C-alpha cells in the first residue's frame, strides 16, 4: 500500500499532471485562460505523431516484437466486447435510451490516445520499459468499439422498427477508418518503422526533446476543456457518474487479465490496462454524432472527457501500474 501511495504521489507531482491540475483549476475558477482550438488540435497531432514515430522506429531498429500478435488480438477483442458490457450496465443502471447507452458504451470501448501518452510518460519517470508495438495496439483499438456500439444501437432500433436504416453510411465509414488519430498514429508508426533509428536521429530534436513540454501544454488545455465541460453540464446523475468511474476499473481489470494470459511485461500490461480503462473523446464523438444523432452528445462528452479522463490521469494510471506490477510479479512467467 505504501508503495502504491508513493507511486501515486510521484504521478501527482510530475509536471504534466500538475499542468493538468492547473488547467482544471483555471477552468473551474472561470479564468479567461484559453488555448486556441487550432493550437490544441495541433498539439494532439504532434503527440500522436511523436508516439507513433518513436514506436515504429524502435520496431524498425530491431526491438523485439514477441507478443505483438497476442497484444493486438487482445486489444481488438477488448475494444469490441467492452461496449457490450458497458451497454448492459448502462441500460440496467441508468435511464438512458438505447442510442445514448450505445454511444456512451462505444466511447468506453475505444481509447484515449492522450491517456496512453500520459501513461508512457509516467512509465518513463518510473524507468519501467514497455514494448514499443503497444502504439500499434492503440491504433487498432480506436474503431472496433464504434462498430460494436453501432451494432447494439441497430439491434435495439430494429426491435422497435424492423424497417430501420441508418443514414450517412459512406461518411461514417470514412470517419471510422480514416479519422485523424488512426491516420497519424498508423502513418507515423509506418514511417518510423521504415526509417528506423537513423530516421529517428534526424527528427529527434522535434520528436523527442520537446515531447514532455508539449504534453504539459496539451494537458493544461485538457484541464481547461474538462473543467468547462464539467461546469457546463447538467447530466451528472448518480448512475452515469458512477459508470464513468467504475467502467475504467472493469476495462483495466479485463485488460490486465488478458495481459497476464499473453505474458506481457509490467510496462506493457500497464499500457494495455490504461487502454482498457480509457474512453475516447475525439474520434468516437464525431462518429456517434453522424451515426446516432438522437443520442445525447452532452452525456458522452461529459462522462468521457470531464470524469473518466481526469480519473485515469490522476488516479488510474498509478493504480493500474501497481496492479500490473503485483500481478506480473505474482502470476507472470
Amino acid at each position, binding site marked *: 500500500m505504501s508503495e502504491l501511495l508513493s507511486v501515486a504521489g510521484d504521478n501527482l507531482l510530475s509536471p504534466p499532471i500538475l499542468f493538468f491540475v492547473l488547467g482544471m483549476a483555471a477552468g473551474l475558477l472561470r479564468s479567461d485562460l*484559453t*488555448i*486556441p*482550438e487550432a493550437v*490544441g*488540435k495541433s498539439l*494532439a497531432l504532434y503527440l500522436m505523431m511523436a508516439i507513433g514515430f518513436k514506436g515504429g522506429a524502435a520496431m524498425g531498429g530491431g526491438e523485439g516484437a514477441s507478443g505483438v500478435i497476442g497484444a493486438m488480438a487482445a486489444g481488438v477483442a477488448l475494444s469490441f466486447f467492452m461496449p457490450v458490457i458497458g451497454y448492459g450496465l448502462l441500460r440496467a443502471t441508468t435511464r438512458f435510451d438505447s442510442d445514448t447507452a450505445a454511444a456512451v458504451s462505444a466511447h468506453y470501448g475505444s481509447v484515449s490516445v492522450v491517456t496512453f501518452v500520459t501513461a508512457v510518460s509516467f512509465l518513463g519517470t518510473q524507468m519501467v520499459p514497455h514494448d514499443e508495438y503497444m502504439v500499434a495496439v492503440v491504433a487498432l483499438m480506436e474503431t472496433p468499439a464504434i462498430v460494436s456500439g453501432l451494432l447494439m444501437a441497430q439491434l435495439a432500433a430494429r426491435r422497435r422498427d424492423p424497417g430501420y436504416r441508418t*443514414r*450517412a453510411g459512406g*461518411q461514417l465509414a470514412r*470517419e471510422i477508418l480514416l479519422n485523424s488519430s488512426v491516420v497519424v498514429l498508423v502513418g507515423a508508426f509506418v514511417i518510423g518503422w521504415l526509417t528506423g533509428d537513423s530516421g529517428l536521429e534526424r527528427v529527434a530534436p522535434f520528436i523527442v526533446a520537446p515531447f514532455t513540454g508539449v504534453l504539459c501544454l496539451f494537458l493544461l*488545455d*485538457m484541464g481547461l*476543456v474538462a473543467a*468547462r465541460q464539467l461546469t*457546463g453540464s447538467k447530466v451528472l446523475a448518480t448512475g452515469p457518474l458512477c459508470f464513468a468511474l467504475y467502467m475504467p476499473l472493469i476495462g483495466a481489470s479485463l485488460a490486465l487479465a488478458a495481459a497476464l494470459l499473453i505474458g506481457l511485461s509490467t510496462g506493457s500490461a500497464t499500457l494495455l490496462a490504461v487502454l482498457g480503462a480509457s474512453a475516447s*473523446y*475525439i474520434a468516437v*464523438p*464525431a462518429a*456517434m*454524432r*453522424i451515426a446516432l*444523432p*438522437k443520442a445525447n*452528445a*452532452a452525456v458522452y*462528452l461529459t462522462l468521457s*472527457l470531464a470524469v473518466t479522463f481526469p480519473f485515469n490521469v490522476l488516479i488510474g494510471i498509478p493504480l493500474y501500474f501497481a496492479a500490473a506490477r503485483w500481478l506480473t510479479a505474482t502470476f507472470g512467467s
Partner: protein
Amino acid sequence: MIALHRRRRLEVIIETPARGLVIDALERNGAPGYTVLPALGGRGLSSSWDRNQLTDAANQVMIIAIVGAEVADKIVAAVASLLDDYRGVISVTDVEVVRAGRF
C-alpha cells in the same frame, strides 16, 4: 444601371459532423456552388456551445448557397428532413444577384 436578378439565398447552420450530408443534399439537388463558414459558438433551445473543443462533434458550421426558386424548394425539403435528426437551422431569403447565369 446594372440589371439585377432575383434568386434565393439558403443559409444552413448545422452541426459539423452533418456538414457532409447537407453538402450532399445541395449537390444532388442542383446547387451550382456553396460556401462553408466556421461558427464560433452560440446557444440553441436547450444548451450553449463553444468552438474551443478538441472534437468537432459539438461544433457547428454555416453553409450558404444562392440558387433559383425551384432548386431552393428541393434543397429546403432535403435539408428539413436532416433537421429531424441533426441540430441545425435553415433559412431562406430573397436576394438579387448580378450574374444570373451563375446561380
